[in-house]
């Protein structure tokens, strides 16, 4: 306990006395944490955009006019039982007509033609959303399958628009998978580069203490007593860099929120504020981990004796 107290005290004292070297290390850790925070926000935008795109994709089953309600209900139930299906919404033929009228209320000739028929020419339809874009294929296969014709559903179905959407769905599937893979690779690469730079800067800072480490060992200090204060210093770099990073992102996200919301589709300022605590924890832990591990590895070189 007394050792821990001394290590922490020494760490703070060393940090204060190292002056410019401490601030150089903090600057580099800040850059790394800046990259990590940028990646978090980038992932949020990517995730948000992909979700929006995914939300626009669906499969619709159009029924013949006069299709029996029982059959429609039973098809709806069997679709809901598919594990791939996220939701099924039924729009009856009356609702479809109302929606159609609403959509074309400025188009007098169409409305007049509709009034002329004096009957509802539209069938109801089922709108199906899958949990994942890749699962639409399975749902489409189910609709084509034998079970459907056995149950007589084929007779009530006018058309399924999956095939028209198939190309778009397939393309989207590829783009989304690619975007996610690319995002992950860029993240990984940037983080590795940042870690290497941080590690080298901290190693340089500790290099100046190389002689002192040797003297401490000669005086009879244990490895932990020598290593500890450097690790505390590393943790302080992480904590200070976290605070600087989070403060820097305040005006940055504010500007992005005000000027880029329509382009990004997401207000980054409100996202940043509402997720500040989670971002703080991720950045803080990354900073402390980076600082402590870099210090640990750097001191280890000089601790052999």
């Amino acid at each position: 306990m007394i050792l821990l107290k001394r290590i922490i005290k020494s760490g703070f004292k060393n940090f204060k006395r190292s002056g410019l070297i401490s601030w150089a290390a903090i600057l580099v850790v800040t850059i790394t944490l800046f990259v990590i925070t940028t990646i978090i926000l980038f992932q949020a935008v990517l995730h948000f955009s992909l979700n929006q795109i995914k939300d626009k994709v669906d499969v619709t089953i159009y029924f013949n006019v006069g299709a029996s309600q029982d059959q429609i209900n039973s098809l709806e139930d069997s679709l809901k039982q598919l594990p791939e299906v996220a939701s099924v919404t039924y729009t009856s033929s009356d609702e479809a007509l109302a929606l159609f009228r609403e959509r074309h209320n400025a188009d007098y000739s169409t409305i007049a033609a509709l009034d002329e028929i004096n009957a509802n020419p539209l069938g109801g339809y089922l709108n199906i959303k899958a949990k994942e874009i890749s699962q639409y294929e399975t749902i489409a296969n189910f609709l084509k399958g034998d079970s459907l014709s056995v149950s007589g559903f084929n007779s009530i179905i006018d058309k399924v628009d999956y095939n028209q959407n198939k190309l778009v769905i397939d393309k989207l599937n590829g783009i989304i998978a690619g975007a996610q893979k690319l995002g992950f690779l860029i993240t990984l690469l940037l983080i590795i580069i940042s870690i290497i730079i941080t590690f080298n800067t901290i190693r340089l800072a500790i290099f100046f203490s190389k002689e002192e480490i040797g003297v401490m060992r000669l005086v009879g200090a244990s490895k932990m007593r020598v290593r500890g204060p450097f690790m505390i210093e590393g943790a302080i770099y992480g904590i200070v860099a976290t605070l600087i990073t989070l403060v820097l992102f305040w005006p940055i996200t504010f500007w992005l929120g005000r000027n880029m919301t329509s382009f990004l589709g997401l207000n980054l300022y409100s996202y940043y504020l509402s997720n500040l605590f989670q971002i703080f924890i991720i950045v803080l832990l990354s900073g402390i981990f980076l600082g402590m591990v870099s210090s640990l590895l750097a001191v280890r070189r000089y601790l052999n004796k």
Partner: protein
Amino acid sequence: MIYFNNVSKVYNKDSIALEDVTFTVKEGEFVSVVGHSGAGKTTLVKMILAEDVPTEGTVFFESLDIHKLKSSDLTKFRRRIGVVFQDFKLLSSKTAFENIAFAMEAVGKTEEEIRSDVPHVLDLVDLGNKANHFPYQMSGGEKQRLSIARAIINQPEIIIADEPTGNLDPVNTYEIVQILKKINDLGTTIILTTHNKGVIDSVKKRVITLERGKIVRDDKDGKYSI
């Protein structure tokens, strides 16, 4: 207390630092090791501190084979030795007080012991008014006195002084030698390496003379004679 048994240290075939060195240091002795630069004095000190490993032979501290100690045992062993270096080897980022306090912390002394003992030992080496000075704010003589204060604070069984007067003027040299003699009078074993004739002649104790890594003379009441 210390036993060198046929110790050789060969860096490469053109650089033999120690060759077949055998000698014993008894408890309470004051032994000066003399020799020209490159005679092997510092290598000999490194052997005792286990900073370097012999190519052949063994070095014992009482019953311990120094070079077979595990890392944690080595730390404990070093706490039994006080070391004074020519270049002082003080912790430059710590004040005079903290330099000594660090050595006490290393052996697990309490804050109370540190608070009471450090000012006392600083007074002993006449640095009472420099407790809050950093090494760069002190003269060579003051740094060496601080380094001696650090070496004796934990009452070690032996003090090794490697050319402690090498960077000092005659007045400071005299002071340092007097301090070392006083410490020896109080019962601590001292091994002093030097090539300063005045130092050897004023100590008037056992002198081991090294030449090209070999012991060429071991006189009980030695004088400087190279």
